[in-house]
């Protein structure tokens, strides 16, 4: 029973997961441990007369052990991680890098120093022209979605790459057989929260507020502080809360891998198409034909509102996908 009890402790569970998850990996490393160098060493020792071998057995064992550990370290943490000079050098490098950075930073112009900011016409241009040119009351949204929209396009694809990489790397094990699946569902039952009344009650109370607030931040992003990134983060947190309180079965009814894929792919494609149209017309000085609306109204700012919605969708999906991938390795 104590062993079972231990499993309910979060850290023990983590250790358990690490142990089971990393085991196949260990085996593979073990295979490559038996490499030529090791075999050669063994072969050399076999020629030693038997009397001496008897004497040296503990020593030899120790040496083998050390060799094995070294090979292992070389594969996992680096060949020299154990050596004292490696640690000393690492320490010196870190300290000198920190020193160098501090040295440079204290010689930077002070924040708000007039004579450096005066050099930059860019900042003052943003403050004076954003509302008129982009229709965004919130200057930050105007900058990130219009002036520097290309960076933001890249940035939202960074999120996509991150999720795709995690999907690619965490689904590294091939098809699961029946037994593994049983083990997994067993583990899930142990780790999932059992209808926790406090959590569920809190979630029932909080969730509507969280979701509505997230949507508000996204939709009002061009008028007040906020936008797709922050609103998406709020919505993603809401989804994570929902999953924690009510479990995978309930969230699976409206948010699965297919939903995730459809929403994020179409949002990104829409974003790229809309921005591409904007870039193309802008660079060629063709009128874009997108109504600007009156500044301050919810339907204003041209493409800003749809772009904010697209970014919000991508960020929501990314937040939830990263959480659930790291939590159980699948959707």
């Amino acid at each position, binding site marked *: 029973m104590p062993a079972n009890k231990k499993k309910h402790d979060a850290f023990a569970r983590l250790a358990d997961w690490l142990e089971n998850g990393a085991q196949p990996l260990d085996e593979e490393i073990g295979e490559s441990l038996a490499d030529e160098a090791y075999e050669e060493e063994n072969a050399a020792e076999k020629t030693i007369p038997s009397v001496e071998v008897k004497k040296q057995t503990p020593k030899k064992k120790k040496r083998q052990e050390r060799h094995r550990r070294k090979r292992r370290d070389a594969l996992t943490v680096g060949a020299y991680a154990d050596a004292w000079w490696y640690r000393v050098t690492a320490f010196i490098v870190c300290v000198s890098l920190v020193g160098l950075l501090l040295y440079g930073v204290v010689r930077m112009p002070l924040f708000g120093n007039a004579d450096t900011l005066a050099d930059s016409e860019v900042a003052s241009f943003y403050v004076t*022209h954003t509302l008129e040119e982009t229709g965004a009351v919130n200057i930050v949204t105007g900058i990130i979605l219009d002036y520097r929209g290309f960076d933001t396009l890249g*940035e939202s694809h960074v999120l996509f790459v991150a999720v795709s990489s995690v999907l690619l790397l965490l689904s590294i094990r091939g098809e699961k057989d029946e037994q593994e699946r049983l083990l997994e569902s067993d583990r899930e039952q142990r780790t999932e929260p059992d209808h926790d009344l406090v959590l569920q009650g809190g979630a029932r109370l909080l969730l509507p507020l969280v979701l509505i607030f997230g949507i508000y931040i996204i939709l009002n992003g061009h008028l007040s502080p906020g936008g797709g990134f922050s609103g998406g983060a709020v919505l993603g947190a809401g989804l994570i809360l929902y999953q924690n309180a009510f479990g995978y079965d309930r969230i699976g009814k409206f948010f699965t891998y297919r939903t995730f894929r459809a929403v994020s792919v179409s949002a990104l494609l829409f974003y790229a198409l809309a921005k591409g149209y*904007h870039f193309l017309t*802008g660079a060629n000085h063709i009128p874009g034909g997108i109504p600007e609306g009156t500044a301050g109204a919810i339907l204003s700012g041209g493409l800003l509102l749809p772009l904010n919605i697209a970014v919000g969708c991508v960020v929501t999906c990314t937040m939830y996908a990263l959480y659930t991938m790291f939590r159980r390795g699948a959707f």
Partner: protein
Amino acid sequence: MILAWWQNLPLFLVLCPLMCGVACSALRGKASRCVTAAMCAAESAGMAVLLWYTASGNVSFTYAMGKIGAPFGNELRAGPAEALMGLGFTLVLTLSVTGGNRSLTEDVESKRMNLFGAMIGLLTAATAAIVFTNDLFTAYVFIEITTLSACALIGVTNRGRALFSSARYMVMNLLGSGLFLLGLSMLYALTGQLLFPQLASAVDALIAENRYSVSMYLSFLLMGLGLCIKSALYPFHTWLPDAYSNATAVSGALLSSLVSKLYIFLLIKIALRAAGEEAFIHRIGDVLFLYAAVGTVLGSVHALYQRKLSRVIAYSSVAQIACVYLGIALGSGEGIAAALFYILAHSAAKSMLFVTSHKLRRACGGADGLEDLRGAARRSPLAGLAFLAGACSLVGIPGLGGFAAKMYLAQAAIGGGGWRMPALLGLLAVSTTLNAAYMLRTALILYSRDKPAGEAGKPKARDAAFAAATAVMIGLNLFLGFCGRPVIELIHRGLALFS
């Protein structure tokens, strides 16, 4: 005014692969592979058209991303140098993906093929964006995309060590990105500009007034250091051998010939366009030369000791990248042009080595040890021939790209004079000898008449894609070797338009 139609190409060359990559993730494996191949081919064609127009008109132009251009909005810039490098990178990408198609089906599970396609698409888009960018922060954003997708490309095979290599790659490369971001933000705090031309004039003004010089040089140092780590200059190369040798053949080819070279091109762009030679290359030239010199020799020495084919190829990359940095460290226009040519020649040869090495290993039942690969080239003649050509190119046999690259490097050193001339010529001699020692030894082992130890791989249907891609790759190497003159003149013209 409306731009000429081809002046819109940079936008499409970035956006189309981006959208293809995203779409690939929602497709099935086979469809995604077709989309990826078509996208790569279209990308190369687009780069070629762009190169044709910019080179024939000898023009470079900026492309405002939106209504308002510099210094307020994002901007792309294209000229002969950008288009040529872009063409080189995308051509290598296309050939690697086509030639390694068969190896991908063996190494990557079909259900993950769509995500692999997505990664290739995003990597292509990031390549185009970094090549064309005229903006420091855009460069950073697409560096992130490159890093993450490269990381996924390493770990995509089903092998445990690939995951470790991928993790190590990620740690080292994120350190590089972090340093780059630190430098970038410090520079922005000093100048208030992010676009290269405006940044250059702001830096010039700061130098003239002699203000904040410590912070400014520190910011350049951090950016340079970050890019050196990411492109595996010698003491920072530790992530490279594992990453290249454990990845699948296509990933290895892309990482060695695209990803790491991309950062070097970005470094050159920053040095020439954003910092001005005075502020950057002349200051760090000596240090860079020292590191590159050590790397040229020690990278080759490491390669001599390797017993696995993939690791020999990986370590030779360390040495060759150091050679590219030698050209940059010369500090002259000729040196930088030679470095760019070296990048092209090395990409053409190295991607070929990676793609063919998989075929050779397959011919010996998947063995990777050099001893087990005895006579592999006799079992797989085309792969053997291509490997030989690539090895000869890296060594610098006349008629192949590597020879021309080394020759231009030597010419640049002789033209520059000073103490760097004898040093560089000596280094080239030593590195050529060492290259010959390990590359030709490997080729001789592959062609030995001894019976191979490993089981012969199953005879498979003819791999037409591999044959075609290999033939084009050999042709590319021969072209660079025999017609290097027009290429390097093109680079010179492009660099002249930089400032």
